[in-house]
């Protein structure tokens, strides 16, 4: 029984009257890749927001390595090992691709408050950043500004930032959305590599069934903010709730 890294306990948020996440209790173990599925608006991204602290919870707690982090801000949680990639691309548009990654590495190494050294003199950070870019095959574009990248490439950079952060808990929110079928595998292989490292745990929100089949050790299903199913892929995929509320009819027989 490997150790539990992340745990949410009755996690709830209301927007006005609308309960977007409804008392989700769930724990995530090291070396495990959990796919989170559910209809649009089920609360997947909001669940992430609550874990990473973007939105304050109305009720419930978040624990990292058994430690309660519900009260902490986004930045502190991140420093303790919660890493997050966003569903809607969210980068530093007018900085170069390289600088984007370099900033993350700098944050990871807590160099932010060094006032009187020259940033460029920290070559080790630059090399580290380049290494990450190679892994997502963006090194050729390193000097372009982000605004110049096509949508697909921005998605890849989004992933690159998370990898550069090297967290305990990886949270991917539809990493391959809008990525072309020849590019997607690059990212998926990366995620597979991360998975191989048994120290970490990975949360993956995805709508593409084939991706889930090939990567997930476990699936949890959210519906209208509540956790409605949790278990090994095959089983969960087969369940009615998923077939009904989520898959709908297969395309062909529309």
């Amino acid at each position, binding site marked *: 029984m490997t150790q539990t890294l992340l745990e949410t306990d009755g996690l709830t948020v209301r*927007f006005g009257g*609308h309960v977007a996440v409804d008392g989700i209790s769930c724990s995530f173990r090291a070396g495990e890749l959990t796919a989170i599925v*559910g*209809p*649009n*608006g089920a609360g*997947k*991204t*909001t669940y992430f927001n609550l874990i990473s602290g973007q939105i304050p919870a109305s009720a419930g707690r978040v624990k990292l390595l058994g430690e309660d982090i519900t009260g902490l801000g986004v930045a502190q949680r991140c420093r303790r090992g919660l890493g997050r990639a966003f*569903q*809607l691309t969210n980068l530093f548009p007018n900085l170069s691709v390289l600088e984007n990654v370099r900033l993350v590495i700098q944050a990871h190494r807590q160099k932010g408050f060094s006032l009187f050294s020259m940033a460029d003199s920290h070559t080790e950070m630059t090399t580290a950043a380049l290494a990450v870019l190679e892994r997502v095959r963006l090194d050729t574009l390193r000097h372009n500004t982000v605004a*110049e*990248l*096509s*949508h*697909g*490439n921005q998605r890849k950079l989004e992933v690159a930032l998370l990898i550069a952060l090297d967290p305990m808990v990886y949270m991917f*929110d*539809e990493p391959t*959305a*809008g*990525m*072309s*079928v*020849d*590019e997607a*595998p690059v990212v998926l292989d990366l995620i597979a590599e991360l998975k191989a490292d048994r120290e970490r745990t990975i949360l993956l929100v995805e*709508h593409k*069934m*084939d991706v889930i089949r090939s990567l997930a050790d476990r699936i949890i299903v959210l519906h209208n903010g509540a956790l409605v199913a949790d278990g090994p892929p095959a089983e969960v995929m087969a369940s009615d709730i998923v077939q009904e*509320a*989520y*898959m*709908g*009819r*297969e*395309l*062909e027989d*529309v």
Partner: protein
Amino acid sequence: MSDPVLSLRDVHTDIAQYHILQGVDLDVPRGGVTMLLGRNGVGKTTTLRTIIGHWKAKSGTIAYNGDEITSLPVPARARAGIGFVPEDMGIFADLTVEENMTLAAASGPLDPQRRDWLFTVFPPLRTFWHSEAGNLSGGQKQMLSIARAMAEERSLYLIDEPTKGLAPAIISTMAGALRELKRQGASILLVEQNFAVAKALGDTAAVMEDGRIVWTGAMAELAGDAELQERLMGLSMEAH
């Protein structure tokens, strides 16, 4: 089939100092769904933005219903009957869903029947009719963006990756909606990465590579020919 509703001839587009579209020739047959396919960064979005006019074509001609629109301002093209779903969805985050839809019906108030039909296709729109669009979920935003283009009768729809972030169930209903539009006689130019969707919806297809159209033909032909796909899009059906 009759004359194409839209045809591009040797269209070149620059963005800043970059020469992105390098001579695009493309016909969108009337009353059909044309898939625009290709790897990331080959110029699909740029093509759509050039057609609606957000990027100005440096040279070449764009003809719509036989009239040249290459130098028309954007609003004029829209009022000529072109609906546009941008890649970034372009929803007005500070406005409510209702206000987004009100604006979408540019030539008058939103027709209630059409609205209800859109509700059946994208149920969350009803649920969140009065909430701020910026608070919608990724998929819901995508739905709103598509619904907005459908708020009025259009004769040509330019749709950029509509299925990204949509759950399978919604994808199939949306596919149904697009078919419905087609049945009403509209033409659709659809950029899509989800090959299953492309296969299910497309009548004809055009594949881009480095700012040019490198292959056009029937979607069925492309779908049937794995080796062709491999060559054009580095994709093999086996993997999926």
